[in-house]
């Protein structure tokens, strides 16, 4: 048993600090030495309880507090301080540029934030006078650590997780203390995380995967976790594998792009002596999992002791705290051929989590094996969106037609269950509807990328736009870089694409927009934002590639 009945994270922290005060909770990696700064459970408790006392002294109990940390050490301490103090943390990315400042302002007002914990310049003037500001770099007047209560209200919000959504309309998922314990239990059981495990993450700590899957899972299981900044991983992906080898990491992962980058960009000499045999669970989620990437990664690192069975596909979202379904530990991934191409299975749910595959229009369950919207219910499903009763009712309060019982969370994802395993195939609202017939945009995009090598795989969006009372099809695709300057060959690209979709689907694109690579709108986790593409297209804001004769001097 990892936890005891009635415990929530403040109590789990108190128990870890009293039972194993000197055990290492966190290793913070920065730079080439791979020698981390460490934080024991005892030291984490003391620092968090002291900061919690300051939060309470500032009147922030039960209030929303923005959490903007440039160092991962301060983030971890500040997050636990909020949990202990009963302040509702609103973790967010420290804004580096003006556009992010605007987004932060939207989040601050949506959350009705009353305090801000920060550690960087440029935030001193943020917000109005009602906002309590705590600069984590300053040494504060001495204060007695807050005593952790024996119980806390499980139904109370623990933090707000703002989701990518559309840029101008941030939504805060209300995650309760009960949600956190429940989902942590699911993760620990599904991924077999115990006190003997070692976690490593290079994910942002202000998002669910790094936060619930790293910062909280380490405390829940009583094991240690290593942390590295995401930007450092992108620059130095070899350090991911070097750290796994040196610290005998058992549990580490991230979105598909991390595996892709690691498979492509690490040079053999950077991995001399690296041994990945300790890596038991290489989890992967948050964006479509590509079978080719997994295969490439496994093949490349087999010589370093990486086992294909370590790969662990999973499915989840902030609205369900994090984890919904996951593969079996020590089993090779299930890959099936489907109309959308190869799909990787995301395993099964566990505990009290249920999923239903539902027709999004009729709200009836589809026949066994058919595709539909994935609905989820269980104790990990969050309380709703902060201060959005209508949106919460629509998204978290769905009922199956003619069936009584507890409500469901509508995920907006399309999937199906085959042989008991969940497969995720796309998004509901992205369906392209032409003349009353529905097309999955993924199908159209796949046909395009197969039609001509000038298009970047998985970098396109098909969507419909209103036209003459009906709709017409628009396809936007990023060009491969080496095709950017071959403007004279673009007509051939367009014609190949039009022939392909006409032959396969009997539709034609009213416009085929060729984009500059890297400009297709995506969520922060890499999902293509087709509705944003549509909006950008209609506003003429897509980054169209322009024929360029000019070459470098």
């Amino acid at each position: 048993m990892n936890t005891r009945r009635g415990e929530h994270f403040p109590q789990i922290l108190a128990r870890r600090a009293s039972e194993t005060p000197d055990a290492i909770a966190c290793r913070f990696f920065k730079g080439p030495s791979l020698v981390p700064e460490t934080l024991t459970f005892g030291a984490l408790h003391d620092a968090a309880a002291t900061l919690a006392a300051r939060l309470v002294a500032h009147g922030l109990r039960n209030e929303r507090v923005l959490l903007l940390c440039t160092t991962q050490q301060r983030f971890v301490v500040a997050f636990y301080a909020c949990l202990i103090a009963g302040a509702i943390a609103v973790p967010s990315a420290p804004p580096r540029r003006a556009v992010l400042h605007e987004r932060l302002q939207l989040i601050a007002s949506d959350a009705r934030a009353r305090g801000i914990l920060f550690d960087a310049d440029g935030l001193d003037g943020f917000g109005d006078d009602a906002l309590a500001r705590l600069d984590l770099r300053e040494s504060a007047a001495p204060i007695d650590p807050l005593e952790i209560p024996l119980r806390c209200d499980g139904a109370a919000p623990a933090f707000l997780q703002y989701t990518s959504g559309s840029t101008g309309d941030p939504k805060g998922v209300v995650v309760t203390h009960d949600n956190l314990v429940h989902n942590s239990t699911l993760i620990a059981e599904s991924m077999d995380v115990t006190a003997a495990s070692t976690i490593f993450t290079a994910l942002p700590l202000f998002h669910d995967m790094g936060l619930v899957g790293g910062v909280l899972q380490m405390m829940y299981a009583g094991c240690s976790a290593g942390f590295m900044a995401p930007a450092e991983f992108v620059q130095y992906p070899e350090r991911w594998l070097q750290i796994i080898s040196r610290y005998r990491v058992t549990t580490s992962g991230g979105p598909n792009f991390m595996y892709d980058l690691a498979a492509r960009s690490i040079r053999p000499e950077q991995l001399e002596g690296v041994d990945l045999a300790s890596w038991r669970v290489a989890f992967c989620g948050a964006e479509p999992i590509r079978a080719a990437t997994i295969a490439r990664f496994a093949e490349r690192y087999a010589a370093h002791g990486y086992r294909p069975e370590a790969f662990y596909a999973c499915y989840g979202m902030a609205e369900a705290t994090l984890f919904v379904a996951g593969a079996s530990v020590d089993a090779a991934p299930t890959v099936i051929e489907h109309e959308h191409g190869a799909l990787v299975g995301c395993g099964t749910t566990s505990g009290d989590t249920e999923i239903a595959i539902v027709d999004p229009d009729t709200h009836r369950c589809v026949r066994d094996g058919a595709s539909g919207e994935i609905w989820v219910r269980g104790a990990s499903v969050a309380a709703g969106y902060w201060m959005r009763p209508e949106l919460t009712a629509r998204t978290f309060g769905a009922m199956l037609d003619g069936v009584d019982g507890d409500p469901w969370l509508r995920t907006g994802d399309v999937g199906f269950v085959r042989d008991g395993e969940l497969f995720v195939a796309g998004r509901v609202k992205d369906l392209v509807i032409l003349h009353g017939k529905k097309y999955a945009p993924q199908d159209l995009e796949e046909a395009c990328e197969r039609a001509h090598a000038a298009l970047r795989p998985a970098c396109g969006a098909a969507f419909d736009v209103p036209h003459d009372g009906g709709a017409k099809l628009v396809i936007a695709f990023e060009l491969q870089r080496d095709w950017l300057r071959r403007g004279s060959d673009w007509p051939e690209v367009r014609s190949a694409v039009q022939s392909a979709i006409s032959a396969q689907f009997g539709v034609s694109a009213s416009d085929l927009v060729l984009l500059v690579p890297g400009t297709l709108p995506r969520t922060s986790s890499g999902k293509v934002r087709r509705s944003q593409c549509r909006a950008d297209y209609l506003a003429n804001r897509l980054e169209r590639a322009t024929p360029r004769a000019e070459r470098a001097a």
Partner: protein
Amino acid sequence: MSSREQLLRCALAEVIEVEAHDVCVRTPFAEQGVDSLLGLRFVRRMQDLLGAEIELEWLFDHPSIEELSVFLDQRFGAIGARPGSAE
């Protein structure tokens, strides 16, 4: 083209996986497909080549090879007679 420009052009070409002569020194990075991920990869490559700390922000403030080269020359001194390609 200055030595600095040649060096940066090779570094960027490697990161965006094209030939060096296909990289334009005047075209803004964004128009050559440099997104935030590739920007970070480019910064790393420059650090490896120059042996100095490079900040990602500099790519936004000096958004082409030409402009970035001028900035880096001012900050670190011009690269003398060193060959343009480090590889």
